């Protein structure tokens, strides 16, 4: 790491998109759609884009879903008809303009359609996290006052029914999967397809009303409301206008040359802004095909079958896949293993350079081509990445080894940085300028600014309208000139203009000695080890840093199996002395690396424990997007933290856990507290 972080952080920088966006204004995969469709002169809403696609790409596939073992597909023309039928159905239920329609379920074409149908009738779709429990759901439904809920299946319907008494505005549920629903009292329930049939039968009666409502949609009417995952406090409803969604979809599609012939796999939570932009925004803008997996468990099989050309995954997914590949290679025959190691070493040497179009010697090229035949091609095929033209990862830092592994195979994996309030895109890496330690340059139309405390600010056409019913938060996040605080601390590299993020601004603190405390920086370094799943580092206002560690059960379990180490549970494996030794070695290696950095060398981990349970969203320790909730963890495990600082060698604790079905239980454990070697602070090195 450099020791330039702080000097750079302290300077206020304004970098405009004109400087940083060489890719701006490029064509749309050869299709000239741009000018005709901006808000002022053309279709300025998502439903309007749908009608355009239904004419323009009538018989091209718009949505696919694997069901009953077969990929079922709908063309754009069919999609338009289905969505209109549902919109008419909703009208027949008496939906008003401005009503909120909650959408809950796994990624399915019909649920995406329901969001567009809601927009058609002037209502506002609010997608919810499908794994949210009933109380979490009640908060969101109550906050927006949803009148209608469109639910994927019985499980979601049950949750809504459970909390309906707390929801005065709630009126009806439309459910998709009829399974198990026959016995329910249907006074407040409609089946999705039946509602569509009602809509179709009333076309003559309600068609004009539907037309009128669509005509009223403008570039500034609300397109969707998305709730933030609530890393701190209650979730906030982020209101995005058609302008936000369409402008962002347009510029980002141009940035990566997305076109109608692309394919994506929609498998990330529908409530997440990224999924909305990919599967609705960009899909509607470019007309590409959105493919929905059969179930969450079949995602990898479906990925392989579809072979998307445009793919997004959080680092965790790439990590898991790499871990699986490595585990399977461990079990492979000796010849295969040798071949794999030989060609992967070569790929790491020249693969990224080839991908960036840099000059590579002819012999290296031939060797790489042989590797493509023997290893890279088949491996990409197995992973489902054969056709990936543009791949993105975001949300967390990705380990350099993981990132380079995929890039060396010839997969154009890049990083982007964004948030709900920006309609995803703040920065992204242009082709040819990809590195694992930056998040790229400002996206077209985005301006960046670094505040004095290091916090990153941006301004763009994608900037959200407001937090629904929360003017205070809106004012606290977005200033009068439209600058939005990201809450992340970072700096812009002077040489390249790339943005680098170091941590959440509020998590960056000070140690008792005055040294900078950036927990995420250390946590990420530790999480790059396949054996480590999750880390929480403590040390704000304290003398030294300590850490909680979760082992990765897949990786460590496989290691245990190969070494004939028996274990019955996560807890038992986590406390195994050899596992503790391995983790200690990892911690010490990270300490050595952290010590290299003058500013952050105070963040070395002095003592740590391997936790007796995995941190889990059901216990409130992680958000639904799997981000660590520090404050809750600090309160819940206060006894363990105390032991980390009082010098004891072990600590006994009882922890309450919530099972998937909502029941509670308790885990008792005695944890060993280990001390790790720390390096002397590297001040001398920096002085030289």
């Amino acid at each position, binding site marked *: 790491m450099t020791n330039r972080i702080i000097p750079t952080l302290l300077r206020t920088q304004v970098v405009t998109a004109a400087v940083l966006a060489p890719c701006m204004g490029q064509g749309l995969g050869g299709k000239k759609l741009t000018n005709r469709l901006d808000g002022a002169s053309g279709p300025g809403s998502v439903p309007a884009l749908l009608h355009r696609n239904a004419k323009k790409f009538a018989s091209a596939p718009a949505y696919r879903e694997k069901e*009953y*073992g*077969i990929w079922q597909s709908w063309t754009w023309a069919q999609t338009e008809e289905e969505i209109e039928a549902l919109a008419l159905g909703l009208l027949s239920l008496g939906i008003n303009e401005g009503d909120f329609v909650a959408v809950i379920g796994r990624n399915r074409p019909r649920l995406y359609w329901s969001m567009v149908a809601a927009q058609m009738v002037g209502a506002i779709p609010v997608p919810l996290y499908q794994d949210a429990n009933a109380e979490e759901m009640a908060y969101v439904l109550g906050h927006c006052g949803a009148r209608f809920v469109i639910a994927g299946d019985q499980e979601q319907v049950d949750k809504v029914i459970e909390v309906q008494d707390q929801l005065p505005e709630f009126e009806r549920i439309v459910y998709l999967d009829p*399974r198990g629903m*026959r*016995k329910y009292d249907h006074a407040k329930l409609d089946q999705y397809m039946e509602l569509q049939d009602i809509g179709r039968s009333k076309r003559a009666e309600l068609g004009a009303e539907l037309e009128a409502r669509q005509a009223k949609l403008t570039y500034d009417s609300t397109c969707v409301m998305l709730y933030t995952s609530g890393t701190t406090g209650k979730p906030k409803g982020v209101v995005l206008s058609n302008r936000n969604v369409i402008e962002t979809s347009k510029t980002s599609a141009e940035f990566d040359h997305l076109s109608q012939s692309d394919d994506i796999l929609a498998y990330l939570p529908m409530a997440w802004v990224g999924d909305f932009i990919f599967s609705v925004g960009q899909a509607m803008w470019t007309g590409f095909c959105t493919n929905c997996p059969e*179930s969450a468990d079949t995602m990898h099989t479906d990925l392989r079958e579809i072979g998307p050309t445009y793919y997004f995954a959080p680092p965790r997914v790439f990590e898991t896949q790499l871990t699986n590949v490595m585990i399977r290679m461990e079990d492979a025959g000796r010849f295969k293993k040798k071949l794999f190691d030989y060609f992967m070493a070569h790929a790491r040497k020249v693969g990224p350079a080839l991908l960036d179009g840099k000059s590579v010697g002819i012999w290296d090229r031939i060797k790489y081509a042989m590797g493509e035949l023997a290893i890279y091609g088949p491996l990409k095929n197995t992973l489902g990445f054969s056709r990936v033209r543009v791949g993105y990862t975001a949300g967390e830092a990705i380990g350099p080894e993981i990132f380079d592994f995929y890039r060396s195979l010839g997969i154009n994996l890049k990083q982007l940085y964004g948030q709900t309030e920006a309609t995803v895109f703040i920065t992204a890496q242009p082709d040819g300028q990809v590195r694992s330690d930056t998040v790229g340059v400002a996206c077209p139309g985005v301006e960046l600014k670094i505040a004095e405390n290091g916090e990153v600010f941006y301004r763009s056409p994608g900037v959200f309208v407001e937090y629904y019913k929360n003017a205070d938060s809106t004012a606290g996040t977005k200033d009068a000139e439209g600058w939005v605080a990201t809450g992340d601390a970072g700096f812009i590299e002077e040489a390249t203009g790339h943005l680098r993020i170091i941590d959440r601004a509020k998590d960056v603190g000070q140690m008792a000695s005055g040294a900078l405390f950036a927990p995420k920086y250390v946590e990420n370094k530790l999480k790059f080890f396949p054996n480590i799943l999750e880390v929480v580092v403590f040390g704000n206002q304290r003398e030294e840093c300590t850490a909680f560690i979760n082992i990765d059960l897949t990786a460590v379990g496989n290691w245990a199996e190969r070494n004939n180490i028996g274990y019955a549970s996560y807890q038992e494996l986590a406390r195994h002395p050899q596992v503790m030794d391995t983790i200690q070695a990892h911690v010490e290696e990270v300490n050595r690396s952290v010590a290299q950095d003058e500013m952050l060398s105070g963040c070395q981990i002095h003592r740590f424990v391997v936790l007796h349970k995995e941190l889990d969203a059901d216990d409130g320790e992680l958000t639904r997007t799997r981000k660590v909730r520090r404050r809750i963890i600090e309160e819940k495990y206060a006894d363990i933290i105390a032991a980390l600082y009082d010098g004891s060698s072990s600590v006994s604790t009882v922890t309450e856990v919530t099972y998937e079905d909502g029941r509670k239980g308790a885990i008792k454990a005695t944890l060993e507290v280990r001390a790790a070697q720390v390096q002397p602070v590297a001040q001398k090195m920096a002085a030289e």
Partner: protein
Amino acid sequence: MRVTDMTTEYTTADGRRIGGTVMEMKNITLRFGGVEAIKNISFDIREGEIRAIIGPNGAGKSSMLNVISGFYVPQDGEVWYKGAPRPPMKPFEVAQQGIARTFQNIALFEGMSVLDNVMTGRLTHMKTGLFAQSIWKGKAEQEETENREVAERIIDFLEIQAIRKTPVARLPYGLKKRVELARALAAEPTILLLDEPMAGMNVEEKEDMSRFILDVNDEFGTTIALIEHDMGVVMDLSDRVVVMDYGKKIGDGTPDEVRNNQDVIDAYLGVSHD
């Protein structure tokens, strides 16, 4: 002993229609040499209901299920099926009559994929012969497509899509049980016999399995007879329960009736038999 009225059709509290008697055991006695496994037992199974047979270990539950499935032929008594006494028949003939079952210790084809295993459940519905099947043209191909569709709907229903192509040998126990249920369902049976569907499962797997059993009954209207010794599960699932102990029937009725039956309480809490 009070027995629920058996003469007329009725609708349960949750809206399922229970029809007339579809199968009836009349004074069944089964002996293995000198051991009387089943002693003069009579009960009936009605269309659309979930009928449980419970009892402590060694009570004769599995023997009873084997009598129903035609695997054992009782020395005394008759099995009436769809209003007529059933002559002794081979198990495959019973299967052809619309009775499918799962086994206490899983009997799947371990080397075959889940899909292939489920397809074997369709065997009784396939009409083309060996020759047509091996050439696989015209009728055989069409038949395969139709049967595959039924199999896929069941795979979807039981949420085992992710393991469709996985060899059964590689699956954990709980999933194998579900695959067995899928295979039995693929036969589209009139009566589904489940032999300890929840044995060896953890709480979560038990809950899943219970939900699937209820859904099968609700969705396909399949009559289900199941053996189980987890009392809690049985009481929640079934419409009527037969309780056996030492080969004798000691109780028969709705879960509530059975729960309050003194003989049943004794059998479960362990009163000395003398």
